[in-house]
């Protein structure tokens, strides 16, 4: 297939299926057209077709002219959260039937006597065992024969399972037993879809790996059928181009690979958001960026260094308990590393036993919504505080489509917070907003520290409906001097899809100490990983050069947490023990202050990411700010840093010409959101449409 991508004049469609809306963005050359349509759960492809026709009509082109479609979806995530997957069985090693149920044998909340652990994806009767055992060096301890497997497969076939996951102990080191199980399944039960843990997630730690292969098997039939239907529908509409899928690691894979490894599609929407922010970072030449995406129920924060979102090897989906770490299921695949906390416009507040204001993660959702929606909500949400503090205009919310009732907000704030704490409604709103902003700031601080970063020289890029209302204050709290609010922030993920490269990351767990450093083995291993990863990318793009990024995960022997060490191609292909050691000590010292003398160092995981080169990004012209933007008077706006109401200048975003500026305190309004400029900041409209907030000079 011919690569017709990312050239300045191609016609490309980005589609993001979210929980509520399906966002569609069409780019024709430099022009961009977008729309939001309601997600159609029963047949999600319908919303895509609908949205596609809308943007094609706006652009005055026919669907046949679309050169490429990039698609990301929350369908895989939702199927896991809502347990709407296929009838799935697991085949695992005898003696380890309950790995996915026993989890870490701990309670993720120590102080709840009534804690309920989430059920595993497959109840116990759907988990079957076979003998055979590998040891920790990948050597066979106990054989596995066809005769051992056949009766198990026959039971699974008789029970009518559609999809089978295979997860055996130490299979990441030796997949011989897993492939034998697949062979027997193929012979006796060819109709079953099969997922092997050694292919889906070849990493050590059985709980994470088994859970990942089960999740893959569980959503595979659903995603395969959806992707097939989507292809058919698009063909019916005259679309002849290739369709690619956004994966959780921030790149694009072919529709065939996506159907085989659907678990890689989990979190593709947020990954698109991070790619969107990374692209803006590139436009401005920013090497240290914090992306901040805040919607109705959650806020997501991601570090973007050198215009590349930070990635990780494991994450958790479907948290069941107040977004608490450990309450979901771990999925070990390459993923853009984000923190997600239960803080959004709909997050509800209450006062706890210590007379502390608590906000979220419980959300008012859209029904009944915050108290100000006047739909029966009587508990104060973040949006209510924003309204009482003057950040929102009650008559122009969501382009004037919903009239907000400030009286209802004040009443809810007073009843739930003010009466308990002896505060008026405005002070209660101040307290609520400060607590939610502090929660988000804390999440960002912890994330930065875990990555050895100091946020004070970072720039924030904010998108999502609620982010621009809170980003200015967050910057004050974090000591971040510059904030960019890009245009099109409401469909940021779908735009991000169009900026993403073709990429695939291959990982392997293989232990090696530096004392036992084996350069030949390393070369072979990394070359194997490179050819695996490159194969996936070549599948999407026959011509483009493919870059390889090498990462090894290292630690002192005896530690349990590895840190990722990036190697250059030369360092990876001519491995030198002194270089590996120096790179590790350098990064370890940066993270934790000092190295530990006299310890052996070991490598646990090897990874190669193959990717097409990043799109050439034209540097944005930057305006310094000169003329004042036309204002529409002022309204009282609370400034939390001052702890008092000020007169906020009201400006409309579409009236700000390039280079125009407004000094805080100010309110910049647009249909989708409102940007709050704190007293400490001045906002300049950049030529590319970004609103650029900086500390007053």
């Amino acid at each position, binding site marked *: 297939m011919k690569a017709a991508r990312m050239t300045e004049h191609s016609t490309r469609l980005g589609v993001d299926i979210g929980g509520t809306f399906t966002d569609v963005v069409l780019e024709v050359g430099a022009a961009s057209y977008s729309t939001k349509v309601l997600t159609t759960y029963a047949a999600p492809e319908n919303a895509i077709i609908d949205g596609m026709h809308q943007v094609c009509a706006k652009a005055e082109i026919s669907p046949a002219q679309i050169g490429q479609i990039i698609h990301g979806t929350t369908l895989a995530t939702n199927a896991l959260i809502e347990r709407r997957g296929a009838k799935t069985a697991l085949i695992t090693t005898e003696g380890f*039937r*309950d*790995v996915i149920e026993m989890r870490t*044998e701990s309670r993720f909340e120590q102080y709840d*006597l009534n804690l309920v652990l989430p059920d595993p994806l497959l109840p116990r009767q759907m988990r079957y065992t076979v003998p055979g055992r590998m040891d920790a060096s990948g050597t066979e301890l106990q054989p596995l024969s066809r005769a051992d497997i056949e009766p198990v497969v026959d039971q699974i076939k008789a029970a009518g399972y559609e999809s089978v996951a295979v997860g055996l102990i130490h299979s990441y080191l030796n997949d011989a037993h897993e492939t034998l199980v697949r062979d027997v399944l193929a012979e006796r039960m060819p109709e079953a879809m099969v997922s092997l843990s050694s292919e889906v997630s070849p990493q050590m*730690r*059985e709980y994470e790996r088994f859970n990942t292969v089960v999740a893959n098997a569980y959503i595979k039939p659903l995603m395969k059928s959806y992707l097939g239907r989507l292809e058919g529908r698009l063909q019916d509409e005259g679309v002849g181009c290739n369709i690619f899928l956004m994966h959780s690691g921030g790149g694009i894979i072919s529709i065939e690979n996506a159907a085989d490894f659907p678990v890689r599609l989990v979190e593709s929407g947020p990954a698109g958001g991070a790619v969107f922010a990374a692209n803006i970072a590139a436009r401005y030449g920013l090497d240290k960026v914090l992306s901040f995406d805040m919607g109705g129920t959650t806020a997501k924060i991601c570090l973007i260094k050198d215009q590349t979102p930070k990635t990780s090897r494991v994450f958790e989906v479907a948290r069941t308990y107040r977004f608490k770490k450990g309450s979901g299921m771990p999925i070990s695949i390459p993923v853009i590393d984000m923190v997600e906390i239960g803080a959004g416009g709909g997050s509800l507040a209450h006062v706890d*036993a210590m007379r502390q204001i608590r906000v979220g993660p419980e959300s008012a959702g859209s029904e009944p919504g915050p108290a100000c929606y006047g739909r029966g909500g009587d508990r104060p949400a973040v949006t209510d505080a924003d309204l009482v503090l003057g950040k929102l205009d009650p008559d122009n919310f969501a382009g004037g489509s919903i009239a907000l009732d400030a009286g209802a907000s004040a009443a809810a704030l007073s009843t739930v917070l003010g009466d308990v704490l002896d505060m008026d409604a405005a002070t209660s709103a101040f307290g609520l907003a400060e607590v939610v902003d502090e929660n988000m700031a804390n999440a960002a601080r912890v994330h930065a520290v875990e990555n050895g970063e100091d946020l004070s020289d970072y720039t924030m890029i904010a998108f999502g409906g609620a982010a621009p209302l809170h980003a200015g204050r967050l910057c004050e709290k974090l000591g971040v001097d510059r904030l960019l609010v890009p245009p099109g922030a409401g469909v940021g993920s779908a735009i991000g899809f169009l900026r993403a490269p073709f990429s695939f990351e291959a990982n392997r767990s293989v232990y090696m100490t530096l004392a036992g450093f084996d350069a030949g083995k390393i070369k072979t291993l990394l070359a194997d990983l490179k050819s695996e990863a490159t194969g996936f990318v070549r599948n999407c793009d026959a011509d483009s050069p493919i870059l390889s990024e090498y990462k090894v995960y290292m630690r002192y022997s005896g*530690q349990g947490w590895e840190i990722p060490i990036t190697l250059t191609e030369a360092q990876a292909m001519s491995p030198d023990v002194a270089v590996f050691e120096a790179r590790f000590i350098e990064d370890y010292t940066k993270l934790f202050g000092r190295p530990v003398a006299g310890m052996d160092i070991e490598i646990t995981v090897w990874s190669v990411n193959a990717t097409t080169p990043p799109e050439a990004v034209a540097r944005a012209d930057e305006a310094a700010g000169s003329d004042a933007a036309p204002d529409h008077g002022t309204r009282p706006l609370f400034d939390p840093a001052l702890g008092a109401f000020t007169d906020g200048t009201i400006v409309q975003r579409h009236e700000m010409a390039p280079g125009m500026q407004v000094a805080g305190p100010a309110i910049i309004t647009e249909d989708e959101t409102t940007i709050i400029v704190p007293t400490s900041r001045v906002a300049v409209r950049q030529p590319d449409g970004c609103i650029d907030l900086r500390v007053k000079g």
Partner: protein
Amino acid sequence: MTHSNVAYQVMWNRLISVVEEQAQALVRTAFSTSVREAGDLSAGVYDVAGQMLAQAVTGTPGHVNAMADAVAHFIRRIGPENIAEGDVYITNDPWEGTGHLHDITMVTPSFHGGALVGFFACTAHIVDIGGRGFGADAASVYEEGLYIPIMKFADRGVVDETLTRIIRGNVREPDQLIGDIYALATCNEIGHRRLIEMMQEFDLSDLTGIADFILENSRRATIQRIAALPQKSADGEITMDGFDRPITLKVNVSVKGDRIVSDFTGSSGLDKKGINCPLVYAKAYACYALKVAIAPEIPNNAASLAPFEIAAPENSIVNALHPAPVALRHIVGHFVPDAVFNAFDQIVPGIVPAEGAACLCNFQVSLRPRTDAPAPVDARRSEVLTFNSGGSGARPDFDGLNATAFPSGVMTMPVEATEHAGPVIIWRKELRPGSGGAGKQRGGLGQYMEVGAREGHEFDIQAMFDRVDHPAKGRRGGGAGAPTTIAQDDGTPMRGKGKQFVAHGRRVMMAFPGGAGYGAAKDRPAHLVKRDLARGYITPEAAAQDYGLSAADIAAVAQAVRNGEDVT
């Protein structure tokens, strides 16, 4: 400068985030599996008087109260006049730290603008401290390993090299331990940096204002909860296996207006072996039991812990004095909540669970090349520690948790990681059907484990199990959980505690205990009985005998399983 209520709310939030960060740094840099995989650690921030203001919620309630008291001991021992910027203090004193020599506690004074503003402290369970090794076999604390009195690890930034040489010379894994000590110092340092940033942001010169705000609100909230309880007292007790002879814990829990006193008068005296418990550790678990029952969401600090008082006769099993052996004090400590619950259930019925597995089902294996025949050249020595859990007790409205730690909150280690740590093979680690006590709410299931060594190795297993002879008892008509069993694969019997030899080629077969049931089994809804049967949590015999499920229903469940149907 005075601050608004809103500013103090923000600062309190921040301090809790600071100590969580401090704990996270420790997990990421520690060497011992007990810290890095299992989360057996704690971290906190204190005011200049040594009052704890905030503590990270980690895997170890046992450290909670113990560490809260520790900083005051450090201030007293070091002497306020000797506290200088750049200092780091250390101890593993069981009585002034957290209960046994295997916990290292480190304290770092925090200076801002040249003045002492507070302290950071952290504690971690390390794998070896010399002596006889981690186990119950010592007759006094002198045999349990190296004792480090409260002293300076670093004096104005200069590490005491004499001390580190003494430590290195006395332990089995010196690199690991020194690595852990540095990790502890690093985590305090990270906490200190975040604290100073906060003080600069809010223009604070000391912590007095925020400390008063935190302590006053916590005290009021805790006392409100206690005042709302029936002002009564009740007795509870529990009997456990002990080492050679059973141990009984007796407790009188008494609600007295603004405090609750747990008095352990009448409990067993000291044991000859190292399962005795210093008072700090028993107090930590008594306090945890009461807090989780009546004030779970109030964060741990000096004021929220103070109303929970403890009394116990000197040299009883829960108030062991120096030089009693205390290495496995966690076993008695983990039984304290069940004893307290047995009393508290008579004061406020319907809150606390039935008895569970109580103590963690831990064991350590010491592997070595076989001695009965020539060993292969690559055979090696290795120490491997694992943490495992039985079932928790059924709750008034919920079943017990299968193979989940309670009251401890530590995690298990992945089998694949354990097998990389040494030449050990875990042949089996899965749920133990039928082990949960029957009841309207069923007890949590225990688990099976089978352990052997790689070809060419033999080993000693250090067993740390209880509930062999004293399974968990049910509440309100619930049935008992299954007891612990342990034997070799050829039938050779083994003991629940102590170091025991396992010859080349043999395996140890263990079944860890289940939690007890709550309420009568006949009242359990039929759909839950069918669900449990389909999942194999209970046997068809138990479904019929304990729960009265009909033969037809049992056959229908079996058919559903054959058809691959879920039964809910």
